[in-house]
């Protein structure tokens, strides 16, 4: 199925939580969804017979200025089709439902997004830093991140 067809199918099921489908030349088409509906939509994306997205290729986060974006790259090994799903949360309360229970590969991806950009995944069983030391302050890939002067007495 193409992204447009998937979008229309999701639209009939989930309604306004599926916001838009953006198709641009030379870019992967993507579907933008509301953050509070991430878990339910992802669940039907995996379990629907016609969609069957059984593989989460990548879960990444981006800093969009006032918002934080989370991007899911999905693939179906059954139907060989791909889909990009995007969602956006405000920076002062960046909470996104975790999809770790849907795709187990999301576990470390979500920890990385939390570590470097501070997206809090609601429902993750072990949301701790994965790359940086546990006592690190701040999230370094945010645009407003200020590099500290020292760490444990070592000059940065």
């Amino acid at each position, binding site marked *: 199925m193409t992204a447009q067809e998937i979008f229309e199918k999701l639209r009939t099921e989930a309604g306004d939580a599926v916001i838009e489908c953006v198709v641009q030349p030379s870019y992967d088409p993507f579907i933008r969804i509301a953050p509070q509906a991430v878990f339910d939509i992802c669940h039907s994306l995996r379990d629907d017979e016609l969609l069957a997205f059984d593989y989460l290729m990548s879960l990444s986060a981006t800093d969009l200025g006032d918002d934080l974006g989370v991007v899911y790259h999905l693939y179906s090994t059954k139907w060989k089709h791909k889909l990009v799903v995007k969602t956006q949360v405000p920076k002062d309360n960046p909470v996104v439902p975790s999809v770790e229970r849907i795709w187990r590969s999301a576990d470390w991806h979500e920890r990385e997004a939390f570590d470097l950009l501070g997206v809090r995944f609601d429902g993750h069983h072990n949301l701790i830093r994965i790359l*940086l*030391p546990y006592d690190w302050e701040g999230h*370094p890939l945010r645009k407003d*991140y200020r*590099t*500290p002067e020292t*760490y*444990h007495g*070592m*000059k*940065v």
Partner: protein
Amino acid sequence: MGLLNKLDDPYEGGGIVLGKVEELLNWGRSKSDWYLHFGLACCAIEFMAMNASHFDFMRFGTIPRTSPRQADFIMITGTVTFKMADRIKILYEQMAEPKYVISVGSCSNSGGPYWEHGYHVLKGIDQIIPVDVYIPGCPPRPEAFEEGMILLQKKISRQAIFNKRKRLGTE
């Protein structure tokens, strides 16, 4: 080195060599260095080539150890992040004296490509532990490893063992 040359010209009667005990000890120490290898990045990959039969690191008398308590020197090969810097410090403190440090590659020498904008990289391992030999390169060729090892051996063979404080005070 210096000791063995004297064997070519022994005193009459044969088998007698005159030399300093210190030279003998230092000769032994410099020819049998066990190392703790701390591989962190691509320099450690180059170090595998150094250890393999083409370059044969063991001909310098080195034996890799997995415990800092058995090691004479530690080889820091690769990018030292702050997370790792704490651990390196602990490992170095666990080593028994006399201990030496070889810093391999641009990253552990000075931060390398991360020297300006790396929020997570230590800008040179010499900020936390004293370094004896720096091996430059990104990553260094095995020949550079060889030279670094020879430099460390030279340094060890020149070191004072007895009456250290008295002699080093006058130098």
